[in-house]
């Protein structure tokens, strides 16, 4: 029920469009340049992407709230997950990753990406390390972390598989650490 409502919001929200290839090439250039700047230190590139995403997320959440017209808070983390997939990803990337693999305590779920506009055309460098170490779309983890932090949820997000590495699916694991109390100022990261 909640899911269908979320779908409706995602579908109905009108949003300015931008050429997909522009996005893909821009993001690709960022990742490739980071790899160059950090001399193929892929764990560091992952960290930088996550940090960039975090800073995007802090700002993007405001845009999300304005565009989606959702004034009500999500009642639980399951609802949050639905809104992330069907509204957030839908309006910003026009995709709806599947929400699956919930843990029994409802604090951790997976987003499975059937399509990933960032990774179109991409082939990871064939240097024997990128295939294992680089998480190409890691910026998305940062975006979720930043955006959810602004609505009092501290989460941890990381990719656990990627079709670019030869896995069957692209899967991101999102875990709720805690709800941040309103009184406390948000932690500096």
């Amino acid at each position, binding site marked *: 029920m909640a899911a269908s409502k979320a779908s409706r919001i995602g579908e109905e929200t009108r949003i300015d469009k931008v050429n997909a*290839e522009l996005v893909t*090439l821009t993001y*690709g250039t960022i990742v490739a340049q980071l790899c160059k700047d950090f001399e193929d230190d892929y764990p560091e590139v992952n960290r930088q992407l996550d940090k960039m995403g975090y800073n995007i997320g802090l700002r993007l959440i405001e845009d999300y709230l304005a565009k989606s017209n959702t004034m009500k808070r999500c009642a639980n983390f399951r609802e949050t997950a639905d809104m992330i997939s069907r509204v957030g990803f839908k309006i910003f990337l026009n995709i709806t990753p599947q929400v699956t693999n919930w843990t029994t305590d409802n604090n951790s779920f997976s987003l499975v990406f059937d399509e990933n506009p960032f990774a179109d055309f*991409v*082939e990871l460098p*064939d240097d024997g390390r990128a295939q294992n170490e680089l998480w190409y779309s890691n910026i998305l983890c940062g975006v979720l972390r930043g955006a959810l932090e602004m609505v009092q949820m501290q989460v941890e997000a990381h990719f656990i598989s990627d079709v670019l590495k030869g896995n069957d699916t692209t899967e991101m694991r999102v875990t709720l650490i805690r709800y941040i109390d309103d009184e406390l100022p948000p932690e500096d990261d």
Partner: protein
Amino acid sequence: MSAAIPSVACLGVIGRNNNPLHISIFPSYDPAANTFSPIRNPLQFSLLLSSTIDVFDLRSKSSTASGDFGLLHAIDDRLAAYGFETNTGVRMVCIVDMRGRRVEAGGSGVAGQGSGAAGASTVGAGLRDSELKPVFRAMQSAYVRLLQNPFYDPDEHAPLGGKGGRRITSKKFGDDMKRIGEAWTPGVTTL
């Protein structure tokens, strides 16, 4: 009873510095041994591709608008080189073996289309230039896909003003070339 029809013997991509970017070689049918094997060795194919560069240069003076150079030269009674050049100076060459693939006579519908299986036994009968269009279109779109990969650095592969450049190492591009070379036969319109 079987007949031979044309097939792709070699696909080559040449960079704007006249440097080799990619060479794919495909086996041809050998009726004597009833096996498939390349009819030239890699070095010979490389030389054949190099020799097309002169033809490209010569013809580019009176260049065609479409970039399609058609038949560049007929090498012998079996092999013929066809070419295509993009506006950025990347050249694609397709060397066709006129008797590279075997078909059972009267059996295959594909063989009957296009130039016709019977007439293909001599280069004189030849292929219409338009027969190679799908090959070049597919090669060009594979090349475009390669360029979209952020980790592919075009400058590295053909430095401006300079000489040389590295070869294409992309597995996806190699697979695309393999697919194109194996799938093409006269009469195929999409690859």
